[in-house]
């Protein structure tokens, strides 16, 4: 086996491609499955960027799905539309293509997502190529075979894999100490999808301290180089729209604050507790005798209006959420300022996205991928990280379940999650049992009865230091199962159509517990003195 592992170290590319192609095959098989309206959104963007001049991209209102991503993404769609036009001109027809459902468009768009995942692959490859074999394999399993990405990108339909590829690429540059490139790639990412801007403060502080803080003259020149580079990226993206005098229109499209605090299905974040507290207080006060008005647009009704309809607690505005995110970020920023270490950057970025997810305005449940994927980088580093990641990634994947509500996809999402659990369990166990053995054998090598001793040590290691989830974690994960069984089977059976919002609400609340745990855990790790 040793010779084989040595051989495996030699040629990395075929191996990482092996992981990619296995995933690609499964994704190909999933082509005919359900896709959300996001599919039509992206198809419309293909048509829009193909048939309209740049100046009309952010003005067009042919379809309700107006372009609301930054310009680079629009350019990306423009690039894809070249091929779409070759395959079937109807796809990129702005009028006739509306709600086009032919096989050609389905295959084209699905395969475009699968191929764009190559960029994610490149990011992972760069991150992992210096790692030892086992950690590397594990990281590949966690990221390339991530069930969340399959659910969101290849069933629900989006291009997150491609975007996360940029993020991972940026992190890989920062970890290598190539700050300029890291900053550049991140700027590019921001021009693809602005929701990634939550980590911008971390980048700013880190780059300022680690890259620019090198004395007066050198520091200033570095600062200006970095600034110029970022400015150039933004100019390339927004320049045409500034030229056409549409920058306000572009920004209005990109930041639709009218959408309300929570999405129709509550993302499992902090605001779930806030809403719940409000409801309980209102209920309690009404019991006591106060006259509390029921807000017109109730959260449980599904649709959410412009204002946040709280009965008792103070209203939440975008500014409030912004300040809360910054406050939550501050410990991390202080740490990054005091001691900017490349080894911590993945944690800090993941933490920033966690904060954004927990306290942000109108957060989508899909956004949990923004921190789950980068955390995979640290999950292979230590046992505690692995334990935390195990729980977190299960919760995050489970919270994506409501995206696929049709019966046909039910076994798919369940199997994806179970497979992910099994792979993580086996992978982490293998990784950390080995580590424990290595640690135990290192001080006293006994050449005589080495094999027997080693097997004993192995047993001991797996009993003590191996990959074990604590009883709280076990109970929590078991609860997840209970919530799922309640929501899927018992609730419809026992209550019928009454209280239809309860299963989803239960899921939100229960998953947000897990995400809160993860946030606190990450925070503790970050403020831990090193």
């Amino acid at each position, binding site marked *: *086996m*040793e010779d*084989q*592992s040595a051989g*495996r170290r030699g040629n990395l590319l*075929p*191996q990482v491609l*092996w992981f990619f*192609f*296995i995933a690609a*095959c*499964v994704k*190909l*098989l*999933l*082509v*005919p*499955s359900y896709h959300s309206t996001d599919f039509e959104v992206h198809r419309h963007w293909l048509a829009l960027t193909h048939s309209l001049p740049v100046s009309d991209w952010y003005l067009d209102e042919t379809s309700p799905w107006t372009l609301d991503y930054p310009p680079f993404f629009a350019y990306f769609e423009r690039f894809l539309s070249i091929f779409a036009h070759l395959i079937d001109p109807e796809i990129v027809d702005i009028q006739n293509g509306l709600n086009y459902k032919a096989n050609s468009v389905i295959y084209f768009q699905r395969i475009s997502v699968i191929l764009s995942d190559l960029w994610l692959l490149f990011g992972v490859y760069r991150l992992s190529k210096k790692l030892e*074999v*086992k950690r590397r*394999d*594990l990281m590949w399993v966690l990221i390339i075979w991530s069930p969340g990405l399959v659910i969101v990108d290849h069933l629900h339909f989006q291009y997150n894999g491609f975007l996360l590829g940029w993020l991972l690429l940026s992190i890989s540059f920062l970890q290598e100490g190539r700050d300029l490139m890291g900053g550049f790639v991140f700027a590019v990412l921001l021009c693809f999808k602005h929701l990634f801007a939550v980590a911008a403060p971390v980048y700013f502080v880190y780059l300022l301290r680690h890259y620019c803080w090198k004395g007066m003259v050198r520091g200033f020149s570095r600062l200006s180089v970095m600034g110029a580079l970022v400015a150039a990226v933004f100019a390339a993206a927004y320049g045409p729209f500034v030229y056409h005098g549409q920058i306000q229109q572009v920004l209005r499209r990109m930041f639709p604050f009218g959408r309300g605090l929570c999405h129709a299905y509550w993302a499992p974040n902090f605001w779930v507790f806030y809403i719940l507290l409000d409801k309980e207080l209102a209920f309690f006060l009404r019991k006591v005798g106060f006259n509390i008005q029921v807000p017109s647009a109730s959260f449980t009704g599904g649709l959410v209006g412009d204002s946040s309809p709280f009965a008792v607690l103070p209203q939440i505005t975008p500014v409030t959420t912004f300040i809360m995110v910054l406050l939550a970020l501050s410990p991390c920023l202080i740490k990054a300022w005091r001691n900017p270490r490349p080894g911590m950057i993945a944690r800090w970025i993941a933490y920033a996205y966690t904060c954004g997810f927990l306290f942000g305005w109108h957060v989508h449940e899909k956004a949990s991928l923004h921190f789950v994927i980068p955390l995979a980088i640290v999950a292979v580093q230590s046992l505690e990280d692995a334990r935390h990641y195990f729980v977190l990634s299960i919760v995050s994947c489970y919270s994506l379940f409501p995206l696929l509500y049709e*019966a*046909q996809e039910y*076994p*798919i999402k369940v*199997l*994806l999650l*179970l*497979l992910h659990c*099994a*792979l993580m*369990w*086996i*992978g982490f*166990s*293998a*990784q950390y*049992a*080995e580590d424990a053995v290595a640690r135990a054998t290192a001080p006293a090598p006994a050449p005589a009865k080495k*094999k027997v001793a*080693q*097997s004993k040590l192995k047993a001991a290691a797996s009993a003590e230091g191996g990959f074990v989830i604590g009883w709280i974690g076990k109970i929590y994960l078991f609860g997840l199962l209970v919530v799922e069984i309640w929501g899927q089977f018992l609730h419809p059976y026992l209550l019928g159509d009454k209280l239809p919002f309860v299963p989803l609400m239960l899921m939100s609340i229960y998953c947000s517990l897990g995400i809160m745990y993860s946030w606190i855990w990450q925070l503790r790790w970050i403020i831990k003195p090193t």
Partner: protein
Amino acid sequence: MGKKKEEKVRDDKVDVDRDDGASWWLVQKGIGASFICIALFALLVRVAVSLHPYSGAGNPPKFGDYEAQRHWMEITLNLPVTEWYRNSTTNDLSYWGLDYPPLTAYQSYVHGLFLRFFDLESVSLFSSRGYESYLGKLLMRWTVLSSDALIFFPAVLYFVCVYYTSHNSSRRNDIVWHISMLLLNPCLILIDHGHFQYNCISLGLTVGAIAAVLSQKDLVASFLFTLALNHKQMSAYFAPAFFSHLLGKCLRCKNPLLEVIKLGLVVIGTFAVVWWPYLHSADDFFGVLSRLAPFDRGLYEDYVANFWCTTSILIKWKRLFTVQSLKLVSFTATVLTCLPSMVQQVLAPSGKGFLYGLMNSSFSFYLFSFQVHEKSILLPLLPASLLALEEPRPFRWLTHHALFSMFPLLCRDKLILPYMAMYAVFTLLYLTPGGRSRLKKTDHSSSIASIMIGFLYLCSSILHIVYLTIRPPEKFPYLFEAMIMLMCFPQFALCAFYSNAKQWLLSKHSTVDKEKKLI
């Protein structure tokens, strides 16, 4: 949990003498855990394949195998047992009449109950003919999926446990590789979950029976194999191998007659139980029996890559001979070709010889018997996949051509995408990095052979593309089907010849004490 532990104990036995220090991470936790992982992946792939169309989707008036299975559920659910196989005003046998043995009928009944619970309309008598709906498709797919998970998967686990407790020398990576080869066989997945059939049940029962034979539980084996036979009469392809191996074993016991009687009682008893409703009158019994032997369908169907169909290009069998004489000729040819392997097993029964014997007898049937269908290649493929670790290259070769021979069928079902994806999954798993140790060791085939193999791979891939893109000339509408058949038949014949030779060489090499140990 208890089951898992048991497997772990077994695993520890398996790799007691090795240290997988830097081994692949998947095998660390033991075979049980790896099996669960692969099984989950295999299930995921099956569910994904089942998203695609089934045979005869939206194609009235006859539809396809999907409608046949659904119709059987409708019939079994709504009519009394004795009416199932009888033509009547309520049961029109010319419209997908039941022509599988009673166990299939019972299985249809149980699945029909499941369908009726969720979607009454899909199995109501008469009105449900050609019923197609989102929910109906889903429920039908799930019945196959659950049968697969409940019968085929445990059978494979049983086989792997048994097989590798007797082979101490194999590495864990090899075992895991072998499990993935067994559970992710593209042909079986495409036919069961794409085209729509329940081969997983009869093949699963057969695998269980094989495992029981290998673990010396002959009575269990004959029970399971009788069930397989009662689910699909096609399982008879394996009957000569089971018969000769078990007979050979019995002859070596102290009291051969007693052993044979014991086995015979189990077989007859199982048959009696399964056929109980039809044993009350001779009429019923022969009525069912005549349904099971569809001799009116001709010597072969479509363009199956067997001896009769391939040679019919030169000799028009169907025109030259009567059905009666063809029956006799095909029967004789089948028996004659599987006789050598049977003789070998009677003379020197051994575990490995038994597996080769299964392959040989099923190949004889596939190549020479009456009324063979393309899908029947699944049967020779099963023992080949059980032998995958010993014969990786022939296994891959055979899988490639088996899949290829079913390409026209799968094209008709609009399953080209899953066909390609499943073929890719299979190839990728076959070439898993670090998955199998013997890959390099056996790499000493001559350059001429490898050029030949490469050339044939190239030919078949070109033919795939030609089949999809070019319309055949008006004069020969089935030109490409015939070409595919002409490419596949020699390979199947070669494989059959090879495994026959291997089986006979086995008895040459095996020493006397080894045989003693086995008995």
